[in-house]
């Protein structure tokens, strides 16, 4: 086949499906830490992301604060996180407030008690998922990778599971690799790896091992050129995905020549 038919080849992948919605782009972008909202808008465009996370906060009574929503295109899914919640009840309250805004019912449950490591509290996350899924929310829970928690979340109605790769904002990469692998192997819902991914190579590695999508925020927003970084992550995630579905061969301990081992010029028969 001639080389100009790459669309056909890529079409062999099926889209990521969450709660009946299909996504061709597997890069979720977090919208925190950007220097200004235009930089965020540029990143949404350069990455082609179809899902972005946002947070809910008290409005600033001292100065005119502008909502971030006008900078997010209408066809991009708004996934409101419950950051700031310290228990299930607070996460539920934030999710209900977000739903009231009319920009959808997708919620990333994030319950954190620890200010040093910012690790999610899986137990409270399960409780919040039970309540919100029963109220019709599309629930994407952010967890410390743990098989039992993931199973409980799916039972509670979670649409996906979002295990952390390493500590939030740490850029440490795929520290939890072996535990995320177990989730990929055992769970039927999409596994979206969230937090700690600091470089496109790490995002590609995550996708190569079979994650369904990757969420990145800090590494993009705090780079010197966020729009370029966002594009780089998006390409890496696509590359990793294609590598995964192409089923790469296993690593070997000895060499295996790439060129034929017969017909050498200097061979005498």
């Amino acid at each position, binding site marked *: 086949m001639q080389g100009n038919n790459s669309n056909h080849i890529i079409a062999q992948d099926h889209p990521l499906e969450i709660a009946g919605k299909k996504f061709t782009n597997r890069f979720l972008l977090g919208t925190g830490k950007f220097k200004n909202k235009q930089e965020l808008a540029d990143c949404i465009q350069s990455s082609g992301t179809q899902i972005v*996370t946002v947070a809910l906060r008290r409005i600033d009574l001292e100065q005119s604060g502008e909502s971030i*929503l006008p900078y997010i295109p209408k066809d991009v899914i708004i996934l*409101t996180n419950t950051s700031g919640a310290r228990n299930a009840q607070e996460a539920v309250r934030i999710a209900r407030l977000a739903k009231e805004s009319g920009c959808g019912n997708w919620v990333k449950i994030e319950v954190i008690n620890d200010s040093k490591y910012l690790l999610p509290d899986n137990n409270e996350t399960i409780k919040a998922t039970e309540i919100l899924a029963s109220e019709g929310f599309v629930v994407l829970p952010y967890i410390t990778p743990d098989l039992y928690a993931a199973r409980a979340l799916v039972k509670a109605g979670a649409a996906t599971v979002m295990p952390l790769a390493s500590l939030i904002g740490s850029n440490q990469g795929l520290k939890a690799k072996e535990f995320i692998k177990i989730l990929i192997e055992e769970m039927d819902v999409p596994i979206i790896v969230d937090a700690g991914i600091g470089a496109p190579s790490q995002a590609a590695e995550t996708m190569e091992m079979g994650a369904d999508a990757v969420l990145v925020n800090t590494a993009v927003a705090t780079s010197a050129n966020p729009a370029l970084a966002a594009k780089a992550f998006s390409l890496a995630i696509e590359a990793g995905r294609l590598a995964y579905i192409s089923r790469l061969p296993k690593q070997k301990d000895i060499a295996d020549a790439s060129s034929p081992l017969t017909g050498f010029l200097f061979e005498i028969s």
Partner: protein
Amino acid sequence: MLSMKITVNGQEKVFESSLSLENLIENLSQNKDHVIAELNGNIIKSSKWLSTAISDGDAIELVTFVGGG
């Protein structure tokens, strides 16, 4: 009427006249697009802001969407 003391986003505010939630939000927020209001723990839809009267001692939360991961 007597002055009315309310709490908005954790801050104490004093108003000298009666007001609706709509008045309050217009008064405190320069942009009410995408503002979500909670009165004493209950979410109030924006269509009800005008008909919701603020009373002495009320606790109001006004929130909006910001960047987050």
